[in-house]
């Protein structure tokens, strides 16, 4: 194990910490090698090995999720779906609960700091909540092979999006569109990096509302959470400052539990999968927040893109029956 010391002296350089983090991730995956090798043949490991493996994997996913700027769900579903013996229904249910729990834990603090906007999130959440129900119901009736294949394609699409997406720290919209003006969607936050308060407005609200309907369907269908799509839409399309976009994305995730309800009601939430995952991810995220201060976020992001590429290919090949 390692410790991070801050203050007068730092005992571990960022490069060493990156290496240590990467080694630990490899170790976590190696520790679970029997589980991965036996995917599909549940008898190869005692029952308690699975929730323990899930906890360990989710703990490390939680560590990298925060610096990489992604929610837990988008990492959880392809990795657990690809390498654990659980049916995709339970994996998607678990993914939705992991995404929901992470967003719920973060949202109160973000709201108090003005880094998430309730006025911005409310109308978007309404549309996402409705479309998530349709997505979740569709996801639960899709044959597993088709769902796996589609998941692989979506994950590879997310990899392309993460690789190419630009970011605008503070887009500086000068004129709000009529709808956002009527709903008074605007705000102010303190940017500690710049040392100043930043006021913001949004534009293209009707186009964003339509986009969020599609995001909700995909999120509900695959249990992915939606931070990977929310943040670029809020930031690049609506012109929300990046920090507020990330915070409001989390708030939207926390407000839209409709898909989770569909999975709960269909019996697709298995406590033995959900609880170790949620606890592991939350504990990992606490360390991830600390790591964010000492490691280069872009390096973690590249590593996560690599993990998603691998997991996306695995889901695609598993769905096509090439790599079972």
């Amino acid at each position, binding site marked *: 194990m390692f410790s991070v010391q801050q203050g007068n002296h730092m005992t571990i350089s960022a490069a060493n910490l990156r290496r240590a983090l990467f080694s630990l991730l490899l170790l976590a995956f190696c520790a679970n090698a029997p589980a991965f090798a036996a995917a*599909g043949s*549940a*008898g190869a490991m005692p*029952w*308690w090995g699975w929730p323990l493996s899930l906890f360990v994997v989710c703990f490390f996913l939680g560590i990298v999720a925060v610096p990489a700027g992604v929610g837990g769900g988008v990492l959880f579903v392809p990795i657990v779906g690809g390498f654990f*013996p659980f*049916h995709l*229904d*339970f994996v998607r*249910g678990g993914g939705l*609960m992991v995404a*929901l*729990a992470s967003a*719920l*834990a973060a*949202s*109160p*603090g973000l*709201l*108090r*700091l*003005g880094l998430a*906007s*309730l*006025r911005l999130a*409310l*109308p978007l*959440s*309404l549309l996402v*909540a*409705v479309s998530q*129900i349709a997505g979740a119901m569709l996801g*639960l009736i899709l044959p*597993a092979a088709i769902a796996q294949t589609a998941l692989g394609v979506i994950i590879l699409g997310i990899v392309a999006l993460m690789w190419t997406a630009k970011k605008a720290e503070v887009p500086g919209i000068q004129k709000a569109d009529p709808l956002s003006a*009527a709903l008074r969607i605007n705000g*102010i*936050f303190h940017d500690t990096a710049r040392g100043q*308060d930043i006021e913001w407005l949004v534009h293209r609200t009707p186009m964003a509302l339509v986009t969020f309907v599609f995001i909700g369907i995909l999120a509900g269908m695959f249990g992915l959470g939606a931070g990977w799509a929310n943040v670029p839409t809020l930031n690049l399309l609506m012109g929300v400052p990046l920090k507020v976009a990330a915070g409001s994305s989390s708030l939207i995730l*926390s*407000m839209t*539990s*409709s*898909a989770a*309800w*569909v999975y*709960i*009601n*269909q*019996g*697709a*939430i*298995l*406590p*033995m*999968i*959900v*609880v*170790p995952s*949620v*606890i592991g991810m939350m504990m990992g995220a606490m360390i991830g927040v600390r790591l964010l201060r000492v490691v280069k976020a872009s390096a973690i992001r590249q590593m996560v893109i690599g993990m998603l590429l691998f997991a996306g290919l695995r889901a695609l090949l598993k769905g096509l029956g090439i790599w079972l």
Partner: protein
Amino acid sequence: MTDPHKYASPEQLRYAKVLSLGVQTGFLILVVSFILYMAGVLTPLVPVDQLPNYWGLSASEFAKATGTPTGWAWLALIGKGDVLNLLGIVVLASVSAVSTLAVLPIFARRGDWAHVAISVLLVLVLAVSAANVLH
């Protein structure tokens, strides 16, 4: 950063307060119920050592094979170790709707009827999805 009202509106602060309380309650229930489940204090509906035989099935096949209740029927089996865990999950899934209801009076007092309507619709959508009336 001394005045919280500079960066967060009164409705945001109330939403955050209710949400924080609900999330802490939900996590506490989730962790305690899982400890009870793992420790075998309460007999589970599906024995833990039998789970690997079933978790590769789809949700509907799993429910049929194990007799796991769907919808809200789990409430009748809340004394079972595994079913009890759903209580914490349900609290976490409900807390945003409760927080949204808590800010309604603030929107209404200000005459902000657009946000009152959006909030009510959001809570209705969540209630419909929770009520298990959609099939």
